[in-house]
């Protein structure tokens, strides 16, 4: 443990609902004060379950959760002081917006004047100052969402949990709300544990992302690291777009793996989690790291590829190639003067650097 204990610590947490299947298998995570940590993963991977254990609505089957260094497995939810935004917002339909916001303050026995002051401030914070007298049903989805955020913050919790708060919103509103939540996080110095299955959302908002699969954290790292150096094939696939070439390791030396693709080409790649010669491997390659007609000596791998399809995207041209036996190899070609000549059916040379090509588990 570091000198300053983390705000939240999950220690060897396991969870089973039915005594047969572990939906969370040995979950470990530290969240420092002021951090924005996102749990990202496909549906059913156990994200909500982890959040519910932290909030105190589900007991952990095994392991201990610490809040500010104190174990909280036996602390009931109403004593944890954790703010929470639910997926369906859970705004009380029989109360007005202002009453909803005043609820946590009332519970704390706060005086009427101070309550009103705080509610007003919280509503202003999410730009809904005018809407205090309305019922939640009379608000749009985005407005309801902002009320839910304001309600989770109004009592100054140390920690705020958000479970797919933007799931029900359309794309534009989503992006706007992502920005607003991020802004609040920075402005108020909040610690946020956020759940989503939208990777763009996770990448743009978080300090760190824990990628879940089948109840296991596959990798927990800052967004750039997740994207640049995924530690396994699942993470590489889940985060961002990704070309895959299957092959077998033929040599390993100083972190460089020589791989023979199933179609016979030899490719040099960065060793990530292959361990011995003869291992099956998935080579992972981001579409924007591939160069068309590379200058001599600028890349480590170079192959001839057939252009199958061109899709014009304005700033770049999405090109589908057949290369190394795969016909779904995507390259993002920058829309600069030199490459305007790319024609469907032509064969060209494409190449990439060794470091951009990761040899991951098969």
């Amino acid at each position, binding site marked *: 443990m570091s000198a300053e204990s983390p705000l939240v610590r999950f220690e060897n947490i396991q969870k089973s609902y039915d005594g047969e299947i572990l939906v969370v298998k040995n979950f470990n995570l530290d969240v420092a004060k002021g951090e924005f940590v996102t749990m990202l993963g496909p549906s059913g991977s156990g994200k909500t379950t982890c959040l519910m254990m932290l909030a105190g609505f589900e007991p952990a089957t095994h392991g201990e959760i610490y809040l500010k260094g104190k174990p909280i497995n036996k602390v009931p939810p109403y004593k944890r002081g954790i703010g929470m935004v639910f997926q369906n917002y859970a705004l009380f339909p029989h109360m007005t917006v202002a009453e909803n916001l005043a609820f946590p303050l009332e*519970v704390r026995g706060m005086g009427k004047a101070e309550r009103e002051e705080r509610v007003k401030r919280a509503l202003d914070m999410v730009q809904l100052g005018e809407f205090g007298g309305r019922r939640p049903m009379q608000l749009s989805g985005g407005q309801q969402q902002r009320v839910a955020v304001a309600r989770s913050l109004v009592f100054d919790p140390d920690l705020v949990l958000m479970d797919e708060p933007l799931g029900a919103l359309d794309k534009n509103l989503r992006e706007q709300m992502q920005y607003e939540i991020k802004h609040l996080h920075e402005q108020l110095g909040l610690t946020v544990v956020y759940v989503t299955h939208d990777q763009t959302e996770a990448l743009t908002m978080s300090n760190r992302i824990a990628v879940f699969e089948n109840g296991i954290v596959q990798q927990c790292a800052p967004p750039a690291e997740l994207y640049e150096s995924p530690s396994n094939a699942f993470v590489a696939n889940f985060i961002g777009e990704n070309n895959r070439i299957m092959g077998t390791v033929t040599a390993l030396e100083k972190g460089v793996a020589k791989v023979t693709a199933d179609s016979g080409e030899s490719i040099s790649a960065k060793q990530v989690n292959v361990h011995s010669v003869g291992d099956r491997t998935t080579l992972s390659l981001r579409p924007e790291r591939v160069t068309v007609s590379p200058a001599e000596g600028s890349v480590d791998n170079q192959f001839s590829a057939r252009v199958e399809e061109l899709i014009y995207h304005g700033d770049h041209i999405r090109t589908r190639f057949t290369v190394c036996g795969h016909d779904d190899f995507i390259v993002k070609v920058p829309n600069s003067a030199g490459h305007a000549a790319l024609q469907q059916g032509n064969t060209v040379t494409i190449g990439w650097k060794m470091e951009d090509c990761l040899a991951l588990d098969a």
Partner: protein
Amino acid sequence: MSTADISISQDGIPLKQKLAKTTALQRRRALLLTMPLVLFLLVSFVVPIGQMLFNSVHNDKVSAVVPNFADAILQWDGVGLPPEETFEIFVKDMIQAKKVREVGRTVGNLATRVNYEMPGSRSLFTSTARKAKKIKEGPYKEALIKLNKKWGNPQIWLTLQRAARDITPAFYVAALDLKYAEDGSIERADELYQIYLNNFMKTLWLSALITFICILLAYPVAYLLSVLPLRQSNLLMIMVLLPFWTSLLVRTTAWIAILQTEGIINDMLVFLGFISDDGRIQMIYNQTGTIIAMVHILLPFMILPLYSVMKTIPPSYMRAALSMGAKPLYAYRKVYFPQTLPGLAAGTLLVFILAIGYYITPALVGGEDGLLISNLIAYHIQKSLNWSLGAALGTILLVVVLLLYWLYNKLIGIDKLRFG
């Protein structure tokens, strides 16, 4: 674009007309589909209620049996005894009536009708009818009084005058435990005859009590139903609905077997030594029996609306409240309970109104003091055959229910109800 452009369709017909035309067929079909129900309701609901309202103020037994006399007595000023001609008409009408065998127009019917208002006068009419043909000529007044000196009492003639009117408030007077005084004004009935008002009060009180017990029992069950996993909640639901699948009579007699003094519960208590063998508790054929059996029968009507509302309350509301620091009880009171009110309101209304009009169960297990107003109504319709009084009581019951409904609407709002 101007408004004129908007409200006129392309072929120049106003949009409203056009819309009406295109939806006319649809509406006609909808009407046709509801027709059977409308007809059924008309025949089985509107007409009987109309009939009841009519019966409660209408009784033509006097004018049907002695029609000429009825006309004549209505002319009388009510001072002393009626004039000689009226006596003559009465005697002749009675002789005539004695020959009639048609149901509803016999002297017996007349006697019964007058007897309602003047208890003990029945035999006066039947015996007079038998002997009336001996009176061959006047003066009829003296002859009649000689036949039976009760005819010399103005009271009987005043009563006949009142009864001669086909439309009469007399049955409401009786239903409200009132009576006509000698001078024709209305006063409270004698203690002995004050049964209906007390019974109305008792019915309301018992219904309220039954409703309250139903709420106490149904609320936790409905809550359990709404939170249990599907398989368990299905099982529980079957148990809740079981009463609907067995006949009312079977259920009620089962209660008799359980509750009677020689029944299972008493046997158990005696066996366990809580009570002595001659101290067996009377739990049936009294109010207790009525309450227990009716709570059992009406419970599903409370559970189902509550359940249907609770089912729609996501657990996240309670969780949200807890996460904001509310203790479970506080969260429940402020967040969960208010959201169940529509179902509670619906269940309460349903059970209370059903209880007010319940008939078969109190009749079977209610004994004497467990009888409700509907049992008295049934008595008048089936046994005493005083349909008019039964109808008057029924109408009062209807008015009470409507009043409650109105009050309820004022307090809670009918639009807030949710039955499922």
